[in-house]
C-alpha cells in the first residue's frame, strides 16, 4: 500500500487537529466494514444446508465477539504498537486496553513541514482503531467457510482467539502498519527500510489482499484438511438451502466493501474516490466473468455465480484498488471472476472439502489481485491522481521490481498462514476436538451445537409438528430449565 492521503491537504498546524471530513468518512467506513461480517454470515449461511445455517452464521457472530474483545485488549497494540524489531510484530502490551491512545490524532501535518508533503490528515486514533478492528474480525470470520456443517462451536471459538493472535495480528502488522503512521516502525511487507526483515518488501496491498484474503484462504485450506471431509462430500447433494440469503449477503458485502477499500485511504479525497470507482469497476466485470464461464461451461448463468463473482471481484481488487487505473480495475475483475469460477472446482479434483470455497474465492482471488498489481500498477491510478508516487508495473514499463515485491508479500503470507493454521488447527483437534461426531453431523450442527433450528414456517399450531404441547413449561407453569432471577 502506498502512503494513504487525501489529494491535497490545505492546512498545516502546530497542534494536531481533527479533519472532521476525513474522520467522518473513516467512521462511516468502519461501520460499513462492521456490517460486512453479518453480511458474510448470510452469504455463508445461505449456502449451507438448512440444518447448519445457524451454526454457520454463529461462526461469524462469535468472531465479532471474541476478536473484537481481543483487539481492544491486545490486538491493536500487537498490530500497530511499537515494533519489537524487524517489522515482525508490534508490542502487545504497550497499548493494552487501548492505553494511551484515546486522545491521539494520527496523520496531521505539523506547521513547519513542507507544504505539499501532507499526509492523510487528522484522524483521531480511536477512529483508526475502529477501522482496523473490523478488518480483523472479518479476516477471521472468512476462514469459517472452509469448515461448514461439521465444526464444534467451542473449538471454533477458541480458534478465533488463537488464530487472530498468532496469525492475523502479525500479518496485519506486516501489511497495514506504516512506518510513522501509528508507531515509528511499521511492518516489513508494506515498508522498505533498513532494520526491517529483508530490508522490507515494499509491496502494494492497499486494503488487504495478502493480510486478509490470501491469509484467510490459506488458513481455510489448512483447516479443511485438519477437519476432513463432510460425510457424503462429493456424493450427496449439498446445495445452498436459501439463495435469497446468499444474495442479501452478497449485497451487504458489496455495500460494506466500499468502506473496506475506499476507507483504507483514511481520508475523503481523490484517492478514496478513485478507489471507490475501481472497486465498483472490478466487481462488475468479475460478475460478468464468472457468469460467462458458467454460461459456457454449464449452460446457465446462476445467481450463486453472480454473487460469487461479486465477491471474487471484491477480493481481487482489494489490494489493487489504489494503484490500477479504472481500465486496469475492469481487467482485474474479469480475470478474477473467470479465474475463481474455474478455481472452485479444484476441491473436487484434489479432494479437500473447502465447503464454501474459501480457497477458490479468497486465496485465488487474493493472489490474482495481489500479483496483477505487479503488471498493472500505474500513475494513472487513484494514488497517482492524488499526487503520490507509484512504482509502475510491467505493462506500464516499470519492469519487474514491483512484481517481485508482490510475489514476496503474497507467498510469505500464504506459507506462514498455512503452516501456522495447520498447527493451531491440529492442536485444537487433538485436544478438545474440532469436529462433531457423525450422528451430530447427520442430524445437523444447529441442533447439536446450538439446540436450535432455523426455520419453523409451517404455521401449524405453535410451529413445527411435535412442538404442540411440548414446551417444557407446560406442566410446571414455567420453563423447566429457566434461569433464576436477574441481576441489577
Amino acid at each position, binding site marked *: 500500500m502506498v502512503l494513504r492521503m487525501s489529494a491535497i491537504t490545505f492546512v498545516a498546524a502546530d497542534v494536531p487537529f481533527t479533519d472532521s471530513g476525513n474522520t467522518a468518512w473513516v467512521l462511516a467506513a468502519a461501520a460499513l466494514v462492521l456490517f460486512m461480517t453479518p453480511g458474510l454470515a448470510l452469504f455463508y449461511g445461505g449456502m449451507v444446508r438448512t440444518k447448519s445455517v445457524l451454526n454457520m452464521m454463529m461462526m461469524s457472530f462469535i468472531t465479532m465477539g471474541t476478536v473484537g474483545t481481543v483487539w481492544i485488549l491486545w490486538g491493536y497494540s500487537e498490530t500497530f504498537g511499537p515494533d519489537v524489531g524487524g517489522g515482525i510484530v508490534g508490542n502487545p502490551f504497550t497499548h493494552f486496553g487501548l492505553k494511551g491512545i484515546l486522545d491521539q490524532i494520527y496523520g496531521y501535518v505539523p506547521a513547519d513541514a513542507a507544504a505539499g508533503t501532507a499526509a492523510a490528515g487528522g484522524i483521531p486514533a480511536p477512529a483508526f482503531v475502529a477501522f482496523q478492528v473490523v478488518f480483523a474480525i472479518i479476516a477471521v470470520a472468512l476462514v469459517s467457510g472452509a469448515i461448514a456443517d461439521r465444526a464444534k462451536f467451542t473449538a471454533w471459538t477458541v480458534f478465533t482467539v488463537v488464530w487472530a493472535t498468532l496469525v492475523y495480528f502479525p500479518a496485519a502488522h506486516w501489511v497495514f502498519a506504516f512506518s510513522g503512521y501509528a508507531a515509528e516502525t511499521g511492518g516489513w511487507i508494506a515498508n522498505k527500510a533498513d532494520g526491517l526483515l529483508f530490508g522490507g518488501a515494499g509491496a502494494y496491498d492497499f486494503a488487504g489482499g495478502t493480510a486478509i484474503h490470501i491469509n484467510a484462504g490459506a488458513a481455510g485450506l489448512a483447516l479443511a484438511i485438519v477437519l476432513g471431509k463432510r460425510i457424503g462430500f462429493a456424493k450427496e447433494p449439498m*446445495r445452498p438451502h436459501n439463495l435469497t440469503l446468499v444474495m442479501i449477503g452478497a449485497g451487504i458485502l458489496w455495500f460494506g466493501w466500499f468502506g473496506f477499500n475506499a476507507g483504507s485511504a483514511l481520508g475523503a479525497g481523490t484517492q478514496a474516490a478513485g478507489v471507490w470507482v475501481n472497486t465498483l469497476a472490478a466487481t462488475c466485470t468479475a460478475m460478468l466473468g464468472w457468469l460467462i464461464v458458467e454460461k459456457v461451461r*454449464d*449452460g446457465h448463468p*446462476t445467481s*450463486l*455465480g453472480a454473487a*460469487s463473482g461479486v465477491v471474487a471481484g471484491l477480493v481481487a481488487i482489494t489490494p489493487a484498488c489504489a494503484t490500477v487505473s479504472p481500465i486496469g480495475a475492469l481487467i482485474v475483475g474479469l480475470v478474477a471472476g473467470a479465474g475463481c*469460477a474455474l478455481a*472452485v*472446482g479444484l476441491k473436487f479434483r484434489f479432494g479437500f472439502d473447502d465447503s464454501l470455497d474459501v480457497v477458490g474465492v479468497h486465496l485465488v482471488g487474493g493472489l490474482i489481485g495481489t500479483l496483477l498489481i505487479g503488471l498493472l500498477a500505474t500513475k494513472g491510478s487513484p494514488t497517482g491522481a492524488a499526487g503520490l508516487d507509484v512504482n509502475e508495473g510491467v505493462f506500464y514499463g516499470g519492469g519487474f521490481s514491483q512484481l517481485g515485491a508482490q510475489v514476496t508479500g503474497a507467498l510469505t503470507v500464504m506459507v506462514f498462514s498455512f503452516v501456522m493454521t495447520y498447527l493451531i488447527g491440529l492442536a485444537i483437534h487433538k485436544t478438545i476436538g474440532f469436529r462433531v461426531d457423525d450422528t451430530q453431523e447427520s442430524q445437523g450442527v444447529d441442533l447439536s451445537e446450538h439446540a436450535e433450528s432455523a426455520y419453523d414456517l409451517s404455521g401449524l399450531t405453535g410451529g413445527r409438528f411435535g412442538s404442540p404441547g411440548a414446551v417444557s413449561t407446560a406442566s410446571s407453569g414455567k420453563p423447566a430449565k429457566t434461569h433464576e432471577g436477574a441481576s441489577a
Partner: protein
Amino acid sequence: MKLVTAIIKPHQLDEVKEALEAYGISGMTVSEASGYGRQRGHSEVYRGAEYTVDFVPKVRVEVLVDDIDATSVADVILKGAQTGRIGDGKIWTVPVEDVVRVRTGERGVDAL
C-alpha cells in the same frame, strides 16, 4: 365407502376441484407430494457442481365417496387432471370400512 386418491400435476388442481364440485363433491383433502416415474426431473448447477433432482412436484387429492360414486369420481378427476402429457399421474381406489365426521360423531355414509 371408498377412498379415491389421485396424484396429479399441481397446475391441474384447480380444474379437478371445480370438476368435483360440479359433480357434487364438496369435500376433499389435498397435500403436497413428489413423484417419480416416466416424467423426468431436472438438473441444477451450483458453483459448477450439477445436482439432478429426480422428483417432480405433485399434488395428492383424496376424496371419500360412497361406493356407487367411486368410479364416476375417479372419472371426474381423470377429466380434470388429464393434459395428455407424461406425468399426469395416477388415481387409485381403496376400500374404506368406516368414516366418522369429527364434529358430530356421525358415522358411515352420513359422515361424508
